[in-house]
């Protein structure tokens, strides 16, 4: 698996994936058209799924593709169409304090990058190059991680019901309200 079937060094694939993820992430936040943003976000998520697959975390990569592209992406697109009609935003698409925001983010990036490059953790070699089988993941999930699993189940149920209740049409809209 490592290196793919073409004789391409694994680093090159990593750089390509990383570049794809970052560029599509920037595009997904910089474009004016909301649908374009959502589509670029999907590219970014697929790139991340590819990264996980490349790191031999096959299960995680597939979960990423299934949940983000299949579920989150679709509700995102529905929400965009239900609110703005999917067109380009009118007026400025940037908030009033965008300079402060981007400045803060850049500062944070420099601080964190500095921290990462000085960290002693980073020199450790990769230990887990073999992916765990789905059976192992399932057994662990049902034994050691049973409580988190149940909690997540509860959370997802609550979220699903909550989302339906929130977005439900009011039963009787008043007549004077224009739709």
């Amino acid at each position, binding site marked *: 698996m490592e290196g793919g079937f073409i004789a391409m060094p694994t680093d090159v694939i990593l750089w390509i994936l990383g570049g794809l993820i970052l560029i599509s992430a920037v595009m997904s936040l910089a474009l004016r058209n909301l649908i374009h943003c959502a589509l670029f976000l999907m590219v970014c998520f697929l790139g991340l799924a590819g990264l996980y697959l490349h790191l031999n975390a*096959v299960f995680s990569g597939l979960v990423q593709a299934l949940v983000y592209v299949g579920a989150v992406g679709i509700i995102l697109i529905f929400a965009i169409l239900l609110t703005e009609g999917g067109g380009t935003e009118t007026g400025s698409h940037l908030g009033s304090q965008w300079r402060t925001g981007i400045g803060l983010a850049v500062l944070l990036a420099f601080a964190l990058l500095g921290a990462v490059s000085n960290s002693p953790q980073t020199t450790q070699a990769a230990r887990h190059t073999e992916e765990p089988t789905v059976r192992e993941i399932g057994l662990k999930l049902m034994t050691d991680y049973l409580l988190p699993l149940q909690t997540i189940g509860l959370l997802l149920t609550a979220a699903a019901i909550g989302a339906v209740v929130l977005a439900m049409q009011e039963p009787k809209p008043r007549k004077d309200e224009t739709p």
Partner: protein
Amino acid sequence: MEPLKGLLSTLWKALTDQPDPKAPFLESIPEDYRSLASAVLSVAPILMVFPLLFALTTVLERKGLGRIQNRLGPNRVGPAGFLQFAADGLKTLTKEDVVPRAADRVVHFLAPIALVIPVLLTFAVLPFGRNLAPIDLDAGLLFFFAVSSATELAVFMAGWASRNKYSLLGALRAVAQMVSYEIPLVLAALSVVMITGTLSLSAIAAAQSPTPGSFLAPWYVFTPWGLMGFLLFMIAACAEANRSPFDLPEGESEIIAGYYLEYSGFKFALFFLGEYLGLFASSGLAITLFLGGWNAPFAFMQGWLPSWVWFFAKLATLIAVFIWIRGTLPRVRMDQLMGLAWKFMIPMTLLTLVAAGLWHRLPSAPLRWVACTALLAGAFLVLGRVLMPRTRHGRRVYRYAD
């Protein structure tokens, strides 16, 4: 000469069910190219067989629908009209490719590609024969669903980028329908996963091999929960593929052609191809999960034919059933479609999961048959008859125009 001999030997091994069919060809070529050649060997048959099957299916579907509707169907091109697909293909290839002026050109161009690629990827994990799974992935079923969920996005891209009301409506209908029916599809598949304890499709197919000495093969469709799961899976697969009676996204009488209204020429052909390949893929998955994959129905038949013949025979049968359904059932309404998914299919698949658990837990054969059948039949009656809004059918009255 050596690689050619290797290739022939590989072909022979693949067609006769021998283990590790790729080996002779891979040994005959240089070390550096082996992994690439292995990938090509896995991909090329899929790219050759399934588009050809698609071409044949279009002709057979039109002929079958013609017979159902009391007409002849295509019968001009080639012997008995069987070369109609070549004529159609040439026509779509040479047609002018029209893109609406208002359309979002890039997304409009990418949508058909984004539809066909994931659909083709799903074939990678299907075991077509005893040793014929292109990738024997440990999480094969998860791969199938993860990849096929990307098609929803492609459908949306097509509908939105066309800047056409009908396209957008069709795309929204299609996405809502595919999202709704994906849940019962996955839940129905989960009952099999619960029994076999694996997500690997090859292992699921192998678990349904008949044991020597028995009569009937242990296909999951021969159990109460398996039969119910199979039926629910097929209904959901039919809706996922946007086929009649669930073809609202492209209902001609309402929204012309839905999300691919603004596509012509080769791009339209790609949509058509993607839709049929998706149908083949989900039929293949149903065969693997419930109909024993490449296994013969009876133990004594197991060695009669190569395993892939059984697989494709089952696939052909399922396609014929889909054509039959399309020719027989009228299109449902949007609220009926959603009501069926959320009020009937999802509770029913959840109860199928419960029944599969009961089947696993109860030891004795007669008891678990009775318990599972009673649970599922009761649930079917309650959900399908009592809770569903019923229309009182009076005596049918025929009215003619004066």
